[in-house]
């Protein structure tokens, strides 16, 4: 029941307009702070409105059943329980089980959640463990211009990484199995949220391309496989090039063909972490972010960023772009804080409009695709002289985990737009301590019933009681429900959750968060053992 109810509430919440008249001030911060769409000029035209022209800025369209203009006087008040149901619909959590008790896992558990603003949601996430090598992978994929690219990357990237890490011998076994039509060795174990979808139709094509990749790896004759840095670096670029090549090569299957086109003409930023023992690698391309929550010996908490946002506010990215393109383009490569004036992140998968030459784009699209039906918007930005302008090459960070590294937060920019790094650490720490004091200790227990009651009522009033079990939910709740002073405002939270579908994206982006908790004891043991 819970899932159906939450769906219902989710829909009704999305489809109805909240108490807008009095509540407008609630959004002031969001409106002033945010550029609403990652793609400025590439705003998607919903399928139902094929013939209207794309408009600049944020798309305000009447494309869904209930929109802001239809029901201006509609008041919808969600109860706290309903708010929780909406917030928790995307929750998933996993506790790691140590298969090999001699080597305890450095990851204790992870908690993840997702809240959509786009309809359908354009963020994706993935968690999987490598079965032929050791290590856990966590990924956040933030799509733009549709969800096709984010979906494809979330499904495929981990396979590329896992294959890159395989030893020569394992790769030979894989190849042998393929040749003899025998079952493949299992590559990944996915730890999925039940709602996470998967493209089933084209997996065989994808497998073929993955195979070509490992065949090339085999040709390198590297006994131990690539290093993790190399693996991440190659996998990102290889997958992006496969995405780009798949649509240039003639494809027979109509479904696969159309899908490949959608994947290539939409985009996705990606941030993924690979954890193996104390070795933490983070690869990032775009404006998703990964941070570490660190507790020093004196008990103080701090934040250690593991990625740099690849956007116009990053000086090294600016200089990279200028370096890669002729000086004549210095003034046009970033316009209004956007790459060529259109795209906010300056690294991403897909987006062949910013990678291919004009001729190639034209050639591919002239092969008779129904671009309107496929929701593809053919577009050449101004000042498009020396493509490619965009790359999926990741920045890879290595961090050797220490016992004081308590948790890792990976999230799409929907979260970071609303909360700073320190806020996020503070909230996760608060969440941890609340979860801890959920079981009052006998020693610290209030002496009598009256005191106990007042303590419990305090906990209830501060919302601790309804405490999100899931740290990701806690972060999302605060991201959209906190006011300018970082205080939780229930009315604001409700209003943000009851935004009509066509308005939601103006006030918030898709938010996807994964919080990974480390096992300090086992990390400690690594150091003592070595």
């Amino acid at each position, binding site marked *: *029941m819970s899932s159906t109810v939450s769906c219902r509430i989710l829909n009704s919440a999305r489809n109805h307009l909240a108490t807008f008249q009095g509540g407008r001030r609630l959004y002031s911060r969001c409106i002033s702070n945010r550029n609403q769409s990652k793609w400025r000029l590439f705003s998607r035209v919903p399928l139902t409105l094929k013939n209207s022209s794309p408009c600049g800025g944020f798309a305000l369209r009447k494309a869904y059943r209930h929109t802001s203009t239809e029901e201006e006087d509609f008041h919808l008040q969600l109860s706290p329980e309903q708010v929780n149901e909406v917030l928790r619909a995307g929750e998933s959590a996993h506790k790691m089980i140590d298969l090999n008790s001699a080597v305890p896992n450095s990851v204790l558990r992870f908690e993840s959640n997702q809240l959509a603003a786009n309809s359908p949601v354009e963020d994706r996430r993935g968690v999987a463990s490598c079965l032929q090598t050791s290590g856990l992978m966590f990924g956040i994929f933030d799509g733009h211009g549709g969800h096709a690219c984010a979906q494809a990357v979330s499904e495929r990237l981990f396979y590329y990484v896992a294959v890159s890490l395989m030893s020569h011998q394992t790769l030979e076994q894989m190849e042998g199995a393929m040749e003899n039509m025998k079952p493949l060795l299992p590559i990944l174990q996915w730890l999925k949220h039940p709602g996470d979808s998967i493209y089933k139709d084209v997996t065989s094509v994808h497998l073929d391309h993955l195979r070509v990749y490992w065949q090339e790896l085999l040709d390198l004759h590297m006994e131990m496989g690539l290093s993790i840095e190399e693996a991440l670096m190659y996998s990102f670029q290889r997958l992006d090039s496969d995405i780009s090549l798949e649509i240039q090569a003639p494809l027979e299957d109509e479904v696969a063909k159309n899908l490949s086109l959608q994947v290539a003409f939409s985009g996705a930023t990606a941030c993924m972490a690979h954890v193996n023992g104390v070795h933490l690698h983070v690869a990032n391309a775009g404006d998703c972010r990964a941070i570490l929550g660190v507790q020093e010996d004196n008990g103080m908490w701090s934040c250690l960023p593991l990625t740099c946002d690849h956007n116009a506010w990053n000086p090294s990215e600016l200089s990279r772009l200028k370096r890669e393109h002729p000086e004549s383009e210095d003034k046009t490569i970033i316009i209004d804080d956007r790459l060529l004036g259109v795209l906010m992140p300056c690294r991403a998968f897909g987006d062949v409009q910013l990678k291919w030459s004009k001729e190639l784009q034209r050639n591919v699209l002239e092969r008779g695709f129904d671009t309107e039906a496929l929701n593809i918007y053919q577009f050449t930005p101004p000042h498009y002289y020396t493509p490619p302008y965009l790359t999926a090459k990741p920045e890879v960070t290595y961090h050797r985990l220490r016992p004081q590294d308590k948790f890792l937060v990976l999230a799409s920019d929907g979260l970071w737009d609303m909360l700073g790094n320190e806020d996020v650490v503070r909230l996760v720490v608060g969440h941890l301590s609340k979860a801890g004091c*959920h079981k*009052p200790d006998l020693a610290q227990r209030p002496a009598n*019933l009256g005191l106990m009651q007042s303590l419990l009522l305090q906990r209830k009033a501060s919302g601790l009681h309804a405490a999100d079990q899931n740290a990701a939910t806690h972060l999302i709740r605060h991201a959209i429900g906190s006011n300018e002073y970082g205080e939780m405002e229930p009315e604001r939270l409700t209003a943000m959750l009851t935004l009509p579908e066509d308005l939601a994206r103006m006030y918030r982006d898709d938010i996807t968060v994964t919080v990974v908790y480390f096992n300090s004891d086992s990390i400690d043991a690594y150091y003592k053992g070595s």
Partner: protein
Amino acid sequence: MFYRLLSVARRQRTSPGWQNWSSMRSNMSTAEAQSIALPAQAQVVICGGGIMGTSVAYHLSKMGWTDIVLLEQGRLAAGSTRFCAGILSTARHLTIEQKMADYSNKLYHQLEQETGIQTAIVDADGRIYIRNWQGGILSGGFEKNPKPIFTEGKNQLEIQNLQEDWDHFEPLLSSLLRRMPELETLEIMKLVNCPETFTPDMRCIMGESPVVQGYFVLAGMNSAGLSFGGGAGKYLAEWMVHGYPSENIWDLDLKRFGALQSSRTFLRHRVMEVMPLIYDLKVPRWDFQTGRQLRTSPLYDRLDAQGARWMEKHGFERPKYFVPPDKDLLALEQSKTFYKPDWFDIVEAEVKCCKEAVCVIDMSSFTKFEITSTGDQALEILQYLFSNDLDVPVGHIVHTGMLNEGGGYENDCSIARLNKRSFFMISPTDQQVHCWAWLKKHMPKDNNLLLEDVTWKYTALNLIGPRAVDVLSELSYAPMTPDHFPTLFCKEMSVGYANGIRVMSMTHTGEPGFMLYIPIEYALHVYNEVMNVGQKYGIRNAGYYALRSLRIEKFFAFWGQDLNTLTTPLECGRESWVKLEKGMDFIGREALLQQKQNGVYKRFTMFILDDHDTDLDLWPWWGEPIFRNGQYVGKTTSSAYSYTLERHVCLGFVHNFSEDSGEEQVVTADFINRGEYEIDIAGHRFQAKAKLYPVTSLFAHKRRKDDVELSDLHGK
């Protein structure tokens, strides 16, 4: 399973008892670990040594069964019994539950004069109870937001080691301190968080498994284990020793459930609704809100779109009534009442239409079996299992009881003879498991005798009203007048384009009309045709509330409500449905012969309330005491407002208790007729006219003078 929270508070921490208990417990378990070897076999093996297991063992040994092995994984009474608050309640919702609680109370007093039974205070609004406990108080309750857990594969210790959850307990603590503010200074001893078992309908599960003979169950006490322990153990012990308990326990019978109620998701959702109801007021005609829309007729969506409001029986959705588009009903919470309900006018309109034009009621939930054989086996076994004579010409329908050895009703059905060797049997909805088990138990193992549950194969539409005949003849191009189609007749015919519809001339209400048993793929077609053609005859949808009013005003008893395993056909005026001389023995015949000779000790009677104001007075629902000349003589079993008589009608059994000894005496028609009656509704007595036969003027549309469908079954 649920958390139940008890807060144990005590004035002094130093007093012994509780603290020592846990250590004592661990010592005990080590000692018990080296126990004696189990016997290889025993007459009875009881799994579980809580209050239920020990009670059954106690009563079995009282009845002379002594070869009993009682298995317990921990210590005796160490499961949920251990954490019970020791509270006995004496006011229960159901008659059988009241009897079990009363017996338990007496038993506990008798077992130990000083059992420490004290008064407990229950604050139903605050959902809490409070009692004295070892110099302090013990308080717990039933929260509104229970957390279900399932415990398969977990051992007792795991379940008992649930962590305390103070935040979850806060509402109960707050209502405790609101009721008794002085208690806030009490020191906290312990918060006990223990699971309890709950069932989908808030009643315990008792009885023999329908699939494994000799396997008895007594479980799911809905946290009233202590209250019911003595009585429940006694009834189950009787059941095991004698083959049947001394009371009617159908409300608790394991067989009221089937596999269909065993989905984990269903249980999870339903028990979360059930638990908070423990301290809620039980109002009449309450429907559970969770675990719904499991079994539905193919017409469900059509009917729902036309305003149907639904109730559920055995997982099947059945229409109660149809709310007209221009009418608003009260919100669910506001609709709870013991007075005139908000659907009164709606049902009135439906009843009126049944009387004057024609209504259609979807009655697909009925249990439907087919019994077929290659030779005479089907007839033979049915003649043995049923009291009426089933050797009737093909096409005839027989109303008959399925009786037990005592002559009581195990089931009450209509059986149509489809051909020489094949019978179609219609029983109440909740008989699906019980009736199947009974038939299987008594049927010989014979490959040439086939019993099939065809419930799901047919959609049943009941066309009630004087114009039903017109609708049907127009749709079938066949004359449907009584001359061509007498009452209680069954014929396969075509309706609209659909062929092979089983049309039966009976309506379960005493009104003229037809039941159509339609293979489900034709259901929508036939329904559409009936509604189209019926338009000019004023057809409309109706629901079970209208049906109920119609059948009760005609004195039709209903199995499960009025009739049960301890009532015989002779006690409810159904002599004509019993053929004692049909030429062969049948189950219950001996008992009925004896009863015929000796007379009956209770008699099913209809009461028409005289001075009851429908608008202002509390309504009778069921279970109201009946007084004859000021003496208590029994209770009502069902009641309804008759829109035709413009009076309330109650049905119930009248006893004749001796004024001196209280012993039951024979009840004669004379005894019934020569009394002044009153029905007591919540302390107010209303005058009532007693009747042993239905009001003849109600049968305005008699099809044939002597062939009135005089009494019927599965209404409600």
